[in-house]
């Protein structure tokens, strides 16, 4: 199966000041959301910093 079979979903919203913002998500052929982030989290502040910098 080709990875390209993952469908790109784009959802565009307009911010209060008129700028656009586009959410990109990827969907497997069976309709499942395909997520490969290093640390899939719901609270971005809850992660610990793994970087050495």
């Amino acid at each position: 199966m080709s990875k390209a079979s993952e469908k790109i979903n784009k959802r565009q919203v307009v911010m209060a000041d008129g700028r656009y913002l586009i959410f990109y998500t990827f969907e497997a052929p069976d309709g499942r959301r395909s997520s490969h982030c290093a640390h899939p989290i719901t609270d971005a502040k809850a992660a610990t910093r793994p970087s050495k910098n």
Partner: protein
Amino acid sequence: MSELRWNPLLGEWVATATQRQERTFLPPDDYCPLCATQPGGFPTEVPENDYDIVVFENRFPSLKPDPEPPVVESSELYPVRPSQGVCEVVLYSPNHFSSLAQEPVEQIYKLVRVWADRFRELGALDFVQYVFIFENKGEAIGVTLHHPHGQIYAYPFIPPRIATELKQFAAHYESTKKCLLCNVLDEEFQAKRRIIAENDSFAAVLPFFARWPYETHIYSKRHFQALTDMSDKETGDLASIFKTVLVAFDKLFEISFPYMMVMHQRPVDGQAYDFYHFHIEFYPPLRSANRLKYLAGSETGAGMYINDTLPEEKAAELRAQVREVVWQAPDSTENG
């Protein structure tokens, strides 16, 4: 205030963008404007974090689709024009503490597809002639926000360095009927000493003519001009070699390696650029673990770079840090 002013000495445009003085500068980790807005928290640029990748218009742009009129008048010697264009921010992850090097190759593969989508969409705008995808990473480069992100500038003209490359590629094609970068790649494969890594579709090279100690280029093996020309196999291979280079950078000094990454693609002004060849360039500012290479008098004032190191030796250092890229998705092992 933003406008484009012509530099008649160099024959190139300079953007003034005074509003950028006000942009957020190195906020604490818990006050990141690129993290998703939290319930009850301060409003950020991103209202939710249920995404793979987010793209939005820069809040402090140097180019805008509907710019204000210039504040100064044009003259014959000093043409001025509105700073029309687009400046986008690309968030690589919802995770503030990640970096592209730390993201799985599958996430980089998604990013390559998003980059291609942005190239296609911005390139279709009638006022855009060049779509420039880049990343500034690390405080050594002047980054003001740590959240992993890159940028895209859609210029209303072909920027000077790209114009110089196009001129060189065209001249080489005119005299040899061959692609300049295809010839460079042949030369690098013959020499072998400056090759850092390769896969079926791409090679990572520390070029013969490197201006920075760890300058690294990614060249496509097939002759094409833009991300949108790639097959799915090539898209996966680009993600793989991207990950290879970034991991080697980080492992070199065991730090999150700073760099500028720039993508060189064909212009989108409707002309034919079949003689051009897609490639990516990384300019890391470090010359050792704790020393920076500065762009000083010769580099900035004369345009001649002085590289304090031998590309062949630095390529060997990076090559020693290459690790296998492992795809987690069961359908993508052909790119491993």
